[in-house]
């Protein structure tokens, strides 16, 4: 089972994504963050398998948050979220494992989690 975290400055989409994650049978916990400082404290503790990070939102440096996440916790799989597909090439460059176009539906999220299950880096899944 996966422990997930969602970082998104937009409360509406943050809650929507968290709701979708909570309904996925392979996700055991979802932690929500509107800013990155609390998110990093959580990441540093270890135990977050999936991090959903908002990119392309004005005033929020999603790419930097993703980079820091890779540095702090290389085993965490990062998923970029955006309302456009414009960051998908950058997501590959940064080493993201998934990309979610917002607003997302349950089937998009479930499909993404199935993909992630196939490429788990650590022992959270076996």
């Amino acid at each position, binding site marked *: 089972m996966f422990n997930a975290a969602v970082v998104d400055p937009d409360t509406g989409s943050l809650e929507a994504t968290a709701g979708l994650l909570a309904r996925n049978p392979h996700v055991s916990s979802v932690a929500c963050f509107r800013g990155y400082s609390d998110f990093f404290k959580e990441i540093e503790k270890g*135990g977050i398998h999936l991090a959903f990070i908002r990119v392309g939102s004005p005033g929020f440096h999603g790419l930097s948050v993703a980079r820091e996440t890779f540095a702090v916790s290389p085993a965490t799989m990062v998923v970029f979220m955006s309302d456009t597909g414009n960051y*998908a090439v950058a997501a590959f460059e940064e080493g993201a494992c998934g990309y979610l176009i917002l607003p997302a539906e349950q089937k998009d999220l479930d499909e993404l989690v199935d993909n992630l299950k196939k490429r788990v880096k650590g022992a959270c899944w076996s």
Partner: protein
Amino acid sequence: MIRAIIVDDEQPSVEKMAKLLGDSGIVDVKGKFTNPAEALEFLKKTRVDAVFLDIEMPGIDGLEMSNRVIDLQGGVAVVFVTAYHEYAVEAFRLNALDYLLKPVSKDRLKETLDRIVVEKNIRVHPAPMQVNCFGKFKVVVGASEVRFRTVKAGELLAFLVDRRGSAVSRSEIIDALWGEYEGDRAVAHFNTTLYYLKKALLQHGAEAPVEHARGAYRLDPAGIDCDFHRFMSFIPASTGVNEFSIQEYEEIVALYGGEYLAGSDYQWAERNRIMLREKYIRMLIDIADYYKSAGKHDKTVEIMKAGLKHEQLHGGINFRLVEALLLLNDRISAARYYDMYRRKLRNEFGLEPDAAFKRLMR
């Protein structure tokens, strides 16, 4: 080495990529194709680790091609190589490992290759440290077995190996290994044990591949050669066992030299122990069923006898062994194995072989 093929309808692009991959020194280019259909035929017969795929090709495009590649070889890494940005979202949906824009630079390609090595657990250079988790836990550096000063030092190493590269917080490690101690005492035990672990490895000339960042620890899987990691990195193709995959299946089941971390009573290993045993048995049965359908009953006998060493009372294994012996007209051996199974089953559990097995012996 990373075994790879390149598929691109333009010959110069194929050659350019082949040169870049060849120059990396860690890729063995198994095939170069300008025709996607030929590449698919090739993949029916040869296992690879990665496929470098152009997207815009006549006939089968790269996105469609990636689906067919995954159908043939489930665990393969798909890397798209294209001049266009617009397929990147779709590439994520197809679970591509990477997406490279042409012209591909050497540095960017190196990142891709690093990801393939990590994700597919590919051994590029031989690791100095050998770790055996099937059977008794054993660490060998060079030619000598590492002896740890305390039992816990070995357990700590086994615990980090069990996590396969995931970072684990110190508190999680302490809960698993020193649950009976509280606060500072537990931390002190942990610190001393980590010190003993590193020291024991250093005495054998190996540096512990344990990384520490912000309160969490991880063991770099690339730093060790581990039977359990190799076993776990195997992803069966959706086609199951066939004449092309059989060799790899046999290599993987041969890694199972006994129960996971046998002889230990580590609570934290229980889940993996059960999972690995089930996975082993399932693969063994798949192999036996393949050999039965191929009419190679002597091979079934060989594989099932090896399986009996670890799973003496498994009904499916005993049944297939006896069945194969009967198909080879070796009734005496069949009766002997059946009797042995029936006797043990009765003595240990007071049970009888199931009806299908009894019918087989009539």
